[in-house]
């Protein structure tokens, strides 16, 4: 068997289709890697071995009958533990859902399994997707495979660590303000936030509904694309899903002719780590050398992004998390009085960051404050979206850093939520505008930490992102480098 833990999803699928390896063997390879690497990294909250092996057996039987194999046949995958899986606990890394088993699968999960993927486990996260370090999990932090003293980013922390450490070639995360792209950047991966509405949110436990989007993380641009294509497309169960057909499975050719790239110069200022700045500028140079037209671009209102986001996302979160009241499911702290029971259940069930956001969100929607906060933030959101529309009249893609710096040490920012919120400064604006954005590995710092560049495209133009990503992947030659 020529496959290794570093084989890509595309390679695994071809090996399965060519009869070189069975799905069961692929699953075993991944499960062994999980046994070896998960205890130190804490990337997966649960391993769904039985489910993966059952699906593998079905696919192997199909293969033996000579049936046509689906596009991700035999590819092991993990999904963030805020995606519902029927009969498998889905905790959102929260005490309040510690024992919760959904009666249905999220659309993205059933589409992946339908495409032949083997669901191997449920990945750790910042509780309910709230955080950017992976440290806000009720079940312990996830470590960065490149440097276990550092955070893997968040909130799709476990998904990123599982892919970067070779447990699986690909994972599904969710991105509200950067929760796929930022951990992808910290872990040296491709991480896509699709156009809002391109992937169904049905079965994704909501944090901020107008921002949440399911997206893949992978070690190669092609794998990220394949997973995206498999889960994209309209879903009658999600009223906000777009009517556009699923993305065709064949990735675009990595050619740059005629591509106009806007380099976001504002995002390469003094606040950004010099090594990150240099690596992103280097990526821009590569694109220019490859035939793209690179010019400077600006988003004048992007500076309001973080403030806007931290009004709107908590507002929606305060409402979305109201259902966790200990009445019908989840943690209940029984009390004689109803109000006391609510307070005790939610008090014991939610972590500090979740409580902070529920409180903030309740406040910004309250009578007397709504206008000053919530309504104003909605206007700022519209202004940021208008910035992007203006920029995309001139260019096809925008390029900048995904994060201001590389992965930082665990616990470093623990005391100061505000400085942590600023990590999302570049990933938030495209999320507010509902645009597709892809974090692409663009090199390593001197200390050996991966750095990501963010590509932002027009609505529904994920393919354009992958044209540039595929080119950079070849040009930068980073593919062979793995954490030790």
């Amino acid at each position, binding site marked *: 068997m020529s496959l290794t833990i570093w084989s890509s999803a595309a390679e695994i699928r071809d090996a399965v289709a060519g009869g070189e390896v069975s799905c069961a063997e692929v699953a075993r390879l991944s499960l062994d890697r999980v046994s070896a690497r998960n205890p130190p990294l804490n990337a997966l909250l649960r391993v769904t071995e039985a489910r993966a092996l059952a699906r593998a057996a079905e696919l192997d039987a199909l293969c033996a009958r000579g049936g046509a194999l689906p596009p991700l046949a035999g590819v092991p995958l993990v999904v963030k533990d805020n995606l519902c899986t029927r009969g498998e606990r*889905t905790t959102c890394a929260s005490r309040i*859902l510690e024992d919760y088993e959904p009666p*249905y699968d999220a659309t993205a999960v059933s589409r992946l399994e339908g495409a032949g993927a083997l669901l191997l486990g449920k990945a750790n996260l910042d509780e309910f997707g709230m955080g950017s370090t992976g440290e806000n999990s009720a079940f312990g932090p996830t470590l960065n495979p490149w440097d276990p003293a550092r955070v893997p980013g968040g909130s799709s922390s476990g998904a990123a660590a599982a892919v970067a450490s070779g447990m699986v070639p690909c994972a599904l995360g969710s991105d509200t303000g950067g929760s796929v792209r930022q951990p992808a950047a910290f872990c040296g991966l491709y991480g896509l936030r699709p156009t809002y509405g391109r992937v169904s949110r049905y079965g994704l*436990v*909501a944090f901020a509904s107008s921002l949440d989007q399911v997206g893949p993380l992978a070690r190669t641009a092609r794998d990220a694309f394949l997973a995206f294509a498999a889960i994209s497309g309209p879903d009658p169960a999600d009223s*906000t899903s777009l009517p556009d057909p699923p993305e065709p499975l064949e990735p675009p050719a990595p050619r740059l002719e005629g591509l106009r790239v806007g380099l976001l110069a504002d995002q390469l200022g003094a606040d950004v780590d010099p090594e990150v700045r240099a690596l992103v500028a280097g990526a821009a140079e590569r694109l220019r050398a490859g035939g793209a037209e690179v010019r400077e671009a600006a988003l004048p209102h992007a500076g309001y992004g973080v403030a806007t986001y931290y009004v709107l996302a908590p507002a929606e979160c305060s409402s979305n998390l109201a259902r966790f009241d200990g009445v019908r499911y989840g943690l209940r702290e029984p009390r004689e009085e109803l109000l006391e029971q609510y307070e005790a259940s939610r008090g014991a069930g939610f972590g500090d960051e979740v409580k902070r956001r529920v409180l903030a969100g309740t406040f910004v929607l309250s009578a007397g404050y709504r206008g000053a906060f*919530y309504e104003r933030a909605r206007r700022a959101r519209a202004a940021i979206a208008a910035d992007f529309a203006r920029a995309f009249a001139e260019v096809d893609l925008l390029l900048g850093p995904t994060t201001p710096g590389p992965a930082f040490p665990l616990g470093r920012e623990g005391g100061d939520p505000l400085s942590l919120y600023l990590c999302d400064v570049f990933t938030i604006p495209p999320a507010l505008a509902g645009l597709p954005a892809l974090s692409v590995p663009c090199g390593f710092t001197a200390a050996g930490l991966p750095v990501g560049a963010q590509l932002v495209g027009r609505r529904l133009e994920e393919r354009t992102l992958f044209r540039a990503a595929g080119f950079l992947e070849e040009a930068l030659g980073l593919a062979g480098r793995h954490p030790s």
Partner: protein
Amino acid sequence: MALDVPVIGLEVHVQLRTRTKLFCGCGAGFGAPPNHLTCPVCLGLPGALPVLNAEAVRLAVRAALALHMAVTPHSRFARKNYFYPDLPKGYQITQHDRPLATGGWLEVPLPGGGAARVALAQLHLEEDSGKSLHAAAGGAGGSRLDFNRAGAPLAEIVTEPCLGSPEEAADFLRALHARLTFAGVTTGRMEEGALRCDANVSLRDPATGDGTERVEVKNLNSFRFVERALAHEVSRQREAVASGAVVARETRLFDPGSGATAVLREKETFEDYRYFPDPDLPPLVVGEALLAQERHRRDEAPEALRTRFRTEMGLPDYDAGVLTQDRETAAYFEAVARRCADPKAASNWVMTEVLRQVKAHGGDWTRLRVHPEELGALLAQVAEGRLSTALAKAVFARMAESGEEAGTAVRALGGPVVRDGETLSALVDEALRAQPRAAEDVRAGHGRALGVLVGEVLRRSGGRAEPRAARRLLRVRLGLDAEE
């Protein structure tokens, strides 16, 4: 004069007559065992999302048009946030700042003839909550929750504060009930909560324009309760004003047992529902096509129909009222009357036999297996004296039960009709022997006594004798001309 004139406004919740709930595919019916009509969406399970029921929109638009309202082309849904155990998501999906329809009026017949127009403020769509079943105070087992009703589609119709007396309010509610039931918007079954009403009551001084604080009275779920509760509330406020007390702004609950209202909550603990647009639902667009269809099918208003039944068909007002209680009854009656050419006979049958059958099937007209044309034909036969009323009733009941055709039902009920031959001759002889006095009367020129003899023949034949033939033979035996 002082503060004396009641000012009443009503908020009426009308359950729309849809097959499924407002945002999921669960049945919206009544009477299922607890929690049998539920799914992840209406239970508010994590990750589930609402999908708007187009039929509910259609019925709400129909209601708006019937009430002469302006339909908002782009309305939207909002979340009303509050905690209650029977509210599964911790918020209710409703419409707040952009309701489906505004303005409009309803004509309410006045007791002394004529009609008054009641001005309406708005109509909006919203989902119902579940039901809390509280154990007796101090009893074991606590409260139980039934979510069958959670998510049922409601249209809330709000009047302007323009009703001047409890009687007027009750008359309005009756007229609204008749109008919407007739249009097929709701089943109108009060006992199932198809129409529920809250009222706002205050007193006004017409000279100065001053008014008391508005008091909300809840739980007015029958026409009688509305009148009683409002009468109690108006006199309570008058007494308060007379004794120099202040009428506090508060919410009161009507207790049908005592006939009084009692404080539910004081407005000082003003609830802040933190409304904001629901990010899970796109704006509700009511297209021209739907409006055109609903305008086109707009029914003759029941009042107009009632007048027509009285004047053109010569029905008593009571009959006209019963027959226009809903659209189906009126349509069925008209079809029967057209076929049998005797409106009063058709009316008698529809009001008794037909409505009895429909009621036996829970008010479901689709389960009535006798086509109005068939009933019309049956009544024509009765009118021509070819079938006794008794046999016709038995035939109708059998047809309704078995779905058989009239001919089959007649045969099944004791063979063919007796209209000549020895059997009829023998029956006539028996009748003349049994009713010698009637026979004498007829011979003496009292033609009306012939009916007694015909009845006797029919009774002895078990309803199978053809009345017309029996009459003819009786006349011959009594020495009269065969034809009258």
